[in-house]
């Protein structure tokens, strides 16, 4: 895995290209600590910080061939098959790296090459002959790519902190985007929480020729590959086993050893089984354990470890660990968080690094593609109830929604829960139906914002903004398919794969690989009947069925415990905020940045002097983490940690003729 950067400018003075692209690349060195390189052209530059995984000797970057220069972050797992196909067309290769396959494939197929790639990638490609810069991002947004236009030039980078080195540039919040990020846990479309920084959207190619807006081409959107339905559930179940196995097989292609994350849940356990079958040898597995038993899953982890016989390592997480690492985690995440869950993953990647592993298989996205989230259940319940709103029987299903949450199972509280959910019956037909509960709960964040910003929540505006990205088939999908689209466009891309994924693993130079995001599986599963995935309230039904008898029943049948870490209780001890909270949420800091309402923050913190941090709910937890991380992210943007690169690790120094500096 790697960090990539690029510059495209239009003035004749190009003397700043080399120092600027080098400084940008230095800010990304944690993503690729093994070596680095630059390409300097007449008005263009590319930078690359490399984590060597495939073709360690020859795969250096930036790489030039066929009039193209590439700086590429990621993996195209089917590069061997693509290479064979290209060789049949007479194309000759000089390395065995996947990077060269990407270049030659683009030269041969043009932008249609990207839809042939099975992988996770962010690409900056300079087309020397046509004098244009091509940017591309994988289908689901596993690898990041940001763009800013500053003083007449374009700048591109894997992480926004690379822009902090540009003279005069400083990241500041766009408050409306910040609020939308709060509502959805992600910004919409190509927005980021910052002014003047965009993200290249997943599944998209952008072409930059001049100072004007780029030409964008979408090569993938969820559901764009309609499928012939399977003959039966049993057939689909067999397909799932085979497709997952093949997804794992491709993701084990690596010239360095591959390890895996084992959470103790069904998703990673299934992958552990398949990894052990495909690899045929013992591998290293990694997990987090918690001092707080409410979050700990080590019983299940141990069971799976003894079942597959992996060499297991665990990172133990206490309240102090959360506090001590939070600032660094936010620095890497570069945006406000809503939970502390990224912290253990940041420490987990350090543990992996300490054990000399660079690549891990991990189980994200099973909940999206196989309907594992509560939002699918809630949506199903509400739609069923909405057909007969007066029914006294239909809402009884509420009792079965969340048996692990005490206040839901309590018979006395049933009436209250019914009342709560009843309020969502009226909005069940709006296009964001599955997100209504999350948005409604998160609206409270508006109260925390400085009133001077005049941020208002207008549901219709938000709906318009989100629906602008809907594919034309959206209206023909079932409500649960629509919900999958929304989950993947919001939580998966902007939170799970970034704040909790890419930024935490690459914080320690570890590459995560995601078999559940193999597009062949995602598309196939998308068109299976809903009931295969959510059967009654049985979540990920087909996955349980497909692997029953192959992994222990105790893992298959265990109650789902969403991956979480201690939030408020790590930061408020015995009614007192820890020093980090006192510092960043102090009246002075709140005033200094002007993002939040001083009085609100003081009242919020004061609440916990009287009540135990164990008695707080979702919203208090989210509010504290949001306030704290939003303040810290701004602090990090204002105080960039300048880094320099080791000249001994400079392995590529390419120059366009007449552009040497």
């Amino acid at each position, binding site marked *: 895995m790697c960090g990539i950067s690029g510059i495209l400018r239009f003035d004749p003075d190009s003397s700043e290209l080399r120092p600027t692209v080098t400084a940008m690349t230095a800010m990304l060195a944690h993503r690729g600590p093994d070596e680095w390189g630059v390409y300097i052209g007449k008005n263009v530059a590319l930078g690359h910080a490399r984590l060597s995984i495939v073709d360690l000797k020859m795969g250096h970057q930036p790489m030039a061939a066929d009039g193209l220069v590439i700086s590429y972050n990621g993996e195209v797992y089917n590069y061997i098959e693509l290479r064979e196909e290209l060789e049949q067309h007479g194309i000759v290769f000089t390395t065995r790296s996947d990077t060269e396959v990407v270049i030659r494939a683009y030269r041969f197929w043009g932008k249609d090459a990207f839809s042939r790639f099975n992988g996770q990638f962010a690409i900056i490609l300079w087309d020397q002959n046509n004098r244009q810069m091509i940017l591309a991002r994988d289908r689901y947004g596993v690898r990041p790519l940001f763009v800013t236009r500053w003083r007449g030039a374009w700048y591109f980078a894997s992480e926004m902190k690379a822009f902090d080195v540009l003279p005069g540039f400083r990241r500041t919040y766009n408050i409306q985007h910040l609020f939308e990020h709060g509502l959805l846990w992600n910004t919409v479309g190509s927005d980021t929480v910052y002014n003047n920084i965009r993200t290249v959207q997943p599944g998209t190619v952008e072409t930059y020729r001049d100072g004007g807006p780029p030409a964008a081409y979408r090569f993938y959107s969820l559901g764009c590959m309609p499928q012939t339905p399977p003959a039966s559930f049993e057939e689909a179940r067999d397909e799932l086993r085979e497709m997952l196995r093949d997804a794992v097989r491709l993701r084990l292609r690596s010239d360095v050893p591959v390890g895996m994350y084992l959470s103790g849940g069904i998703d990673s356990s299934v992958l552990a089984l398949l990894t052990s079958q495909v690899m045929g040898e013992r591998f290293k597995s990694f997990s987090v354990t918690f001092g707080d038993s409410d979050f700990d899953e080590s019983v299940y982890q141990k069971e799976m470890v003894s079942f597959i016989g992996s060499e297991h390592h665990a990172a133990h997480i206490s309240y102090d660990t959360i506090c001590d690492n939070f600032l660094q985690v936010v620095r890497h995440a570069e945006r406000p968080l809503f939970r502390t869950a990224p912290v253990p993953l940041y420490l987990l990647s350090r543990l992996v690094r300490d054990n000399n592993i660079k690549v891990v298989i991990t189980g994200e996205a099973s909940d999206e593609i196989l309907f594992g989230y509560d939002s699918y259940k809630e949506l199903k319940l509400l739609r069923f109830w909405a057909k007969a709103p007066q029914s006294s029987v239909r809402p009884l299903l509420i009792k079965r929604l969340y048996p692990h949450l005490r206040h839901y199972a309590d018979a006395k509280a049933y*009436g*209250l829960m*019914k009342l*709560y959910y009843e309020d969502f019956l009226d909005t069940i037909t709006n296009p964001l139906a599955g997100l209504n509960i999350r948005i409604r709960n998160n609206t409270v964040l508006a109260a925390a914002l400085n009133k001077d910003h005049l941020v208002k929540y207008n549901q219709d505006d938000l709906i318009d903004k989100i629906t602008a990205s809907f594919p034309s088939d959206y209206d023909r999908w079932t409500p649960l398919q629509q919900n999958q689209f929304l989950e993947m466009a919001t939580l998966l891309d902007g939170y799970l794969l970034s704040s909790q994924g890419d930024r935490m693993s690459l914080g320690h130079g570890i590459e995560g690989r995601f078999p559940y995001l193999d597009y062949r599986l995602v598309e196939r599963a998308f068109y299976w009947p809903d009931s295969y995935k959510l059967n009654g309230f049985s979540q990920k039904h087909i996955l349980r069925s497909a692997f029953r008898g192959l992994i222990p029943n105790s893992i298959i049948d265990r109650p789902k415990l969403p991956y979480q870490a201690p939030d408020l209780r790590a930061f408020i001890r015995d009614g007192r905020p820890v020093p980090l909270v006192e510092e960043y949420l102090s009246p002075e800091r709140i005033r200094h940045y002007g993002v939040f309402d001083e009085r*609100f923050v003081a009242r919020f913190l004061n609440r916990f002097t009287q009540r135990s941090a164990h008695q707080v709910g979702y*919203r208090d937890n989210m509010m504290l983490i949001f306030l704290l991380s939003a303040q810290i992210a701004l602090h990090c943007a204002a105080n960039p940690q300048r880094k320099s690169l080791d000249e001994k690790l400079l392995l590529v120094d390419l120059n366009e003729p007449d552009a040497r500096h």
Partner: protein
Amino acid sequence: MLMEKEIQDKLVAFICESFMVEPDEFNLEESLVDQGVIDSIGLVEISAFIEETFGIKVAETDMTRHNFGSVKKMVAFIVSKNG
């Protein structure tokens, strides 16, 4: 017997303190859930507050939008129970 105004003031004060909103930030005629003031746990807290403060028992059958659908409706519900 408590006057409606007094009941409403107590409820509003509790809501403002517990859910950190200003009185002018929510509408007394609309659902607190709809307005993003409370979530499901908020409803549990409000009903517990009503039981404790006004000495009434809230039965499962009382939990309807008619009784809890807004602050005004809650006030009317408390008055009817006290009556």
